[in-house]
């Protein structure tokens, strides 16, 4: 078997008793039961009119039994979810230094505008005459994306970054098939070993085989190795730029020349676009397509895990393969092309999701773009890179940077400075939580041992950065000087201590009221009345 990293060593310490009041709460740190445990039969938080007696037309499939949903009043629902929210860390709470996630401030203006009834109340299948403003907004947003990237076309419908990757790789596959007379024999896609997992996963779904490109000592693609891997059977290369080590791929123009020479395509993963937006146009680097994470560079909120949006900018050679639908303008009116019309110069790869795309994220993005303008965007990328270098500079004497030299919008350390301390990257990150910080990205990219990838973004003030730096320095010093007790068993101040992920995976309990769930509560928990 291949070597894999172990991240799941659970603490072998004895469980620590919980100091709480009689209620199980600890001041504002409150316990909250599951919705289903707060149920009262027949209660509802909504008043709906009584339905007059009528003969239904449900045929033989009328529901004949209870679903089992819990009933609560509005005050109880609000209290329940308010208490839940208070257990979450968020950007609104503090810095979120997750590398390649670009956790920047989510402007509230964007939330206000999305809720205008002229947008929220629009049905996607209304006659296009009645949705001209919406189509115009999509078109204008698309236009900004094309100008910022220097690319002639953009597919707006992908629902997330990974979905956008799928879109781009499908377009490449379609272009190759067409060029090679029906079905291309090119199967190889080159992906750096530092790439995010979605890259190889996506390439697989498009029928490609992955070939890994090694990184060199400076954390960038090893151009000599890359040249050796070139061949007539290469369909594409997928490069993140700046890469997942936070470094600009300085050989990128040569890479694009090489891949084009052999007849392949250049897919760019735009996850790190925030480092260069307004200063560099990826189109000038020779890319053929790039997905843009609107929830990263363009501030649409992460919402606890989604929704995202991943429009894909396309070169002239890939533009004909953009998926349906797209917006058109004939000098007077906007319209939507939702079906293939033959004969045509366009060969859409099909449709990626129902309807037109993540409209709610387009509105937020457009508001963000208008608010920043070209000057604001350039300032944002500049500040993002400055912030990351400031952090790097202030930590590099204590911690071990993975690579020499300045970084872009994120800085990368390995666990070299923890060697011999008995403290792992995992322990370090859990201790950060006690200090009041969400940990940085850990153990990614895989090419760096015990990686710690820090991306502050441009919306952190200098004071916020200084506070963060001070805490990290304090923790680093504590680890190096052998104060293991700070780390082992952390976090200690959070609503929950370290959770048993092994248990969760070995005996999955994925819903309330399965038999396993009821028998698995520990006796301790019952005694503490939690």
């Amino acid at each position, binding site marked *: *078997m*291949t070597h*894999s990293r172990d991240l*799941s*060593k659970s603490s072998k310490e004895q469980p620590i008793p919980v100091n709480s009041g009689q209620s199980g709460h600890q001041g504002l740190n409150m316990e909250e039961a599951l919705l289903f445990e707060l149920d009262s039969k027949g209660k509802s938080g909504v008043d709906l009119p009584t339905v007059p007696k009528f003969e239904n037309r449900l045929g033989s499939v009328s529901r004949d039994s209870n679903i089992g949903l819990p009933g609560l009043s509005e005050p109880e629902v609000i209290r329940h979810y308010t208490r839940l929210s208070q257990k979450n860390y968020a950007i609104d709470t503090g810095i979120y230094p997750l590398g390649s996630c670009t956790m920047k401030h989510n402007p509230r203006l964007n939330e206000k505008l999305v809720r205008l009834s002229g947008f929220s109340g629009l049905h996607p299948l209304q006659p296009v005459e009645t949705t001209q403003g919406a189509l115009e907004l999509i078109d204008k947003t698309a236009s900004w994306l094309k100008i910022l990237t220097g690319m002639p076309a953009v597919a707006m419908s992908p629902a997330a970054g990974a979905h956008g990757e799928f879109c781009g790789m499908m377009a490449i596959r379609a272009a190759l098939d067409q060029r090679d007379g029906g079905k291309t024999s090119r199967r190889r896609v080159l992906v750096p070993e530092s790439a995010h997992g979605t890259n190889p996963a996506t390439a697989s779904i498009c029928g490609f085989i992955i070939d890994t490109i090694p990184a060199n000592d400076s954390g960038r693609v090893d151009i000599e190795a890359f040249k050796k891997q070139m061949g007539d059977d290469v369909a594409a290369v997928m490069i993140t730029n700046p890469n997942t080590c936070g470094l600009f791929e300085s050989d990128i123009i040569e890479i694009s020349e090489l891949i084009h020479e052999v007849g392949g395509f250049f897919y760019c993963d735009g996850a790190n676009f925030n480092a260069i937006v307004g200063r560099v146009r990826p189109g000038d680097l020779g890319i053929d397509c790039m997905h843009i994470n609107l929830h990263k560079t363009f501030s649409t909120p992460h919402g606890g895990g989604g929704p995202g949006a991943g429009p894909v900018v396309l070169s002239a050679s890939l533009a004909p393969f953009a998926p349906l639908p797209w917006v058109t303008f004939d000098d007077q009116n906007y319209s939507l092309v939702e079906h293939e019309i033959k004969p045509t110069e366009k060969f859409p790869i099909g449709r990626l999701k129902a309807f037109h795309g993540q409209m709610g994220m387009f509105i937020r993005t457009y508001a963000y773009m208008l608010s920043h303008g070209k000057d604001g965007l350039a300032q944002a990328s500049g500040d993002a890179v400055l912030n990351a270098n400031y952090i790097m500079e202030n930590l590099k004497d204590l911690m071990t940077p993975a690579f020499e030299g300045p970084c872009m919008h994120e800085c990368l350390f390995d666990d070299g400075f923890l060697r011999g301390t008995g403290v792992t990257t995992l322990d370090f990150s859990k201790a950060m939580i006690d200090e009041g910080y969400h940990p940085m990205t850990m153990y990614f990219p895989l090419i760096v041992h015990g990686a710690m990838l820090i991306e502050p973004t441009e919306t952190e003030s200098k004071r916020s950065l200084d506070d963060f730096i001070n805490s990290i320095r304090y923790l680093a010093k504590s680890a190096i000087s052998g104060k293991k007790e700070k780390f082992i068993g952390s976090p200690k101040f959070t609503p929950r201590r370290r959770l048993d*992920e092994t248990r969760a995976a070995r005996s999955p309990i994925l819903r309330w009221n399965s038999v396993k769930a009821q028998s698995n509560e520990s006796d301790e928990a019952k005694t503490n009345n939690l």
Partner: protein
Amino acid sequence: MSNRRYTEDHEWIELEGNIGVVGITDYAQEQLGDVVFVELPDVGIRLTKSDELGVVESVKAAAEIYAPASGEVVEVNEELSSNPSLVNDDADGAGWFVKMHVTNIDELNDLMDEVAYSSYILGLQ
């Protein structure tokens, strides 16, 4: 244990006649952490040496297991589906994965013996 052989990917194979019992080493389970699931092949599948035989999953990692020799799978360790922790507790014994009818015993000559494997893993650390 004297005829046990080891691969560089940390699988072991031990012959009982021409049935080879296959598992992963203690070193491997140490690296993986708590095993939560093991994906095993169907009985009857024929494998060539180095073919993917199954997958071991821990909480944060998944590792492919490769066939140390060519042959046909004649038995799989059913215990592992209800008790994957056997791989952690006794990788060398009760945590075995499959038994295969080895077609060419000579293939095992290319693999490391216990002494060679011990120095191999020392070199990794």
